[in-house]
């Protein structure tokens, strides 16, 4: 967890290598067998030209970064808004970065307003968004 929660603080990045095996595992775990993720011959005929990772898999990596930074405050007091801008494909290395943009105080409760981005190895933004974490009193 972050030892200091303050404006401008960078969150520890998460780096993941995407494989078809990981995508298949995620499909089994979530029950999302949309062929764009798991059927290579189907996906090859779509505008994507091949299989792509589930958006929610990328979001799980964002959540990993947020959990690592904020622990239970994220898991039971977090809010996020994410846009899936590009597809992550097997063979991609995705890096999730985030930072605390500002700290807010509302009704005696502190909130950390964060932004995050998930980029592939070419620097293309795959997921971008904002997250807000409600901090318990021991974090104030």
């Amino acid at each position, binding site marked *: 967890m972050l030892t200091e929660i303050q404006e401008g603080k960078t969150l520890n990045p998460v780096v993941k290598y995407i494989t078809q095996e990981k995508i298949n595992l995620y499909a089994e*775990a*979530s029950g*999302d067998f949309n062929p764009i993720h798991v059927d290579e011959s189907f996906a090859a005929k779509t505008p994507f030209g091949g299989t792509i990772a589930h958006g929610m898999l990328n979001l799980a990596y964002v959540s990993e970064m947020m959990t690592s930074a904020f622990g239970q405050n994220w898991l039971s007091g977090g*809010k996020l808004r994410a846009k899936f801008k590009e597809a992550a494909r097997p063979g991609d290395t995705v890096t999730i970065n985030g930072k605390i943009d500002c700290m807010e105080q509302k009704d005696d409760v502190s909130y950390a307003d964060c932004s995050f981005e998930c980029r592939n190895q070419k620097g293309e933004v795959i997921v971008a968004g904002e997250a807000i974490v409600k901090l318990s009193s021991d974090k104030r």
Partner: protein
Amino acid sequence: MQGNTVNYEELVPGYKFPPTSYELSTSLVAKYIQAVNSAADGFVPPLAITACVIAAMAGSFSLPPNTVAIHASQELEFLKLVPIGSTIECHTIVAQKVTRGKMSMLILELEIFDQDKEKVQSGKTTIALTT
């Protein structure tokens, strides 16, 4: 999970999907944790809940022919941790449906409750359909 599928055309703003229940079993959570390579701590990772709900919802309606459904955006609020083994219930409503040329967007609002009827999560999912 249960599932009579409805046609995409029937999904109009205000349409309520039948509530769906899920048991967040140890094996289901273990599979999710392995898939995303995260840590287990006795609670269900909130995104595991969202993932199951979205997958089931997406499977509950049939797409127009020759279209591909893509997750375009997601909003979520995590309100309460859910212990492994709990049963949750999801309520989903069509908030908006937008068609722009060959692209159609379906915006769904979700509310997820635990077995004590307390809300544990809420969110908004945008699914883009493209040809």
